[in-house]
């Protein structure tokens, strides 16, 4: 699998009122990779992800998945939003199987995949619970399981832990990292949290705001056997400091 983002720009409005949300973004991501786009608000990071998901059209440029142009949303790209995305009338298990039902998967496969994914995200006991009975972290795990259920080639995560408490956020990052290792799914993560991006991804693109553009690419080569230890690693701290500094200077 190869996802190609080629020179995309997105402008809102026309004439003098044109606002350039993102400008000339190019990058690509291949099977099994975990990459992050990091930027402050106004850097257009969500716009980029929405264009890849097919929910918005770029003004210029294109996105290709395995050589095919992206023209709209599709099963090859699973998406997880920051919040409010579970169907409140469906249980956790029914939420997970929703997409499979839409695409007429075989009943046996739906059942099997649903229980497999409930196990992967550690929510077997919450299968029959409704979203309003689940904590914020559990809801996001259901949303991730639901996106994985239809076997996408790539998982697009739009600040998936941005609305969670700090303590829960760290355990969710660990969860996501282990999920990635176990399922070897391809992940593109959007976040404003440098530490999150460093802890999880292999490559980080730093975005500058107004208009949103990539100003730096960072390859992360750190030992990630234990995310808790990783946070104490001097190399981790050094990288985090450098990148935070870049982002801070952009704000001036």
């Amino acid at each position, binding site marked *: 699998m190869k996802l190609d983002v080629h020179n995309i720009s997105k402008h809102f409005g026309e004439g003098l009122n044109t606002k350039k949300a993102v400008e000339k973004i190019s990058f690509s991501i291949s099977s099994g990779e975990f990459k992050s786009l990091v930027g402050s608000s106004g850097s257009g990071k969500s716009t980029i992800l929405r264009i890849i998901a097919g929910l918005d059209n770029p003004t210029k440029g294109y996105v290709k998945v395995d050589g095919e142009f992206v023209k709209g949303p599709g099963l090859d790209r*699973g998406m997880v939003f920051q919040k*409010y995305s579970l169907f409140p009338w469906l249980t956790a298990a029914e939420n997970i199987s929703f997409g499979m039902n839409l695409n007429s998967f075989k009943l046996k496969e739906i059942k099997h995949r649903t229980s497999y994914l409930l196990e992967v995200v550690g929510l077997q006991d919450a299968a029959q619970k409704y979203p309003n009975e689940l904590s914020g972290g559990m809801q996001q795990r259901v949303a991730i399981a639901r996106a994985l259920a239809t076997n996408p080639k790539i998982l697009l995560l739009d600040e998936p832990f941005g609305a969670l408490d700090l303590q829960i956020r760290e355990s969710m990052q660990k969860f996501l990292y282990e999920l990635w290792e176990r399922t070897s799914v391809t992940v593109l993560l959007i976040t404003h949290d440098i530490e999150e991006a460093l802890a999880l991804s292999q490559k980080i693109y730093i975005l500058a705001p107004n208009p949103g553009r990539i100003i730096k690419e960072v390859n992360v080569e750190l030992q990630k056997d234990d995310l808790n230890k990783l946070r104490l690693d001097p190399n981790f701290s050094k990288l985090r400091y450098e990148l935070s500094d870049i982002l801070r200077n952009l704000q001036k």
Partner: protein
Amino acid sequence: MISSELTKRDKSLSLSLFSFGKEPKKLKKITLQLTSIFLPLFFWSIICQLGIVSEMFLPSPMAVFYSLLDMAGSGILFEDIFASTGRVFGGFIFATILSVPLGIAMGAFPSFCALCEPLIAMLRYMPAAAFSPLLIIYLGIEEAPKISLIFIGTVYFNVLMVMDSVKFVPKELIETTLTLGGNTKDLLIKVIARYSLPSIIDTLRINIATSWNLVIVAELIAAEVGIGKRIQLAQRFFRTDQIFAELIVLGFIGFVLDMSFRFLLKYTCKWAV
């Protein structure tokens, strides 16, 4: 010092009968609800006992009760109830069948809304009762004009209120469905209609009251049986006891309808209540 502190607390406690946003305990709630019915009934009996108002104008609760028994005994009451509720359901069901899909479509597709909304907004302000002469000319004096009147009086409000509730479907749910491979039909039926179901049921609950009001208007014009017809006849013979009895029946049926919709909401949309 301490005692004055305590009395202060007591005062605030006694005020809590109507304290803002606080649900009363079950027993207290039931007592209050019963008071709501029985206090006016009590005053009504007192006024009749004292003979302040002539019984011709204000029949006593007992007289009304006997009149009710009388009409029930002769079967008129049930005939009337059957005829009136039949008309209400007829008109209301037609209005629902048309307005729910139309409202959902208008809420979901802004262009379709632009096409329909101006006309509906205007039709809505034409009082349904004003259509009845026309309906009699077109449809005669049987059931059709009565059911049509109820339909006309309910359908536009239903459409606009359903449309509004559809606009509250979170964008995230719609976009999630699209990324999960859903098409327009899936969106409309499995997500938009499903998400709006609680507010649609609530809309129907509110608007069936309008239908119920209109059935009386419809029966005043031309009817053999029906609660409205009975009230009109009772007026001719100065039977205020019958009018009171029929009014109470109207209120009671309305109350039962309202409760049924509330139960329907509770059992079909547990997640929303």
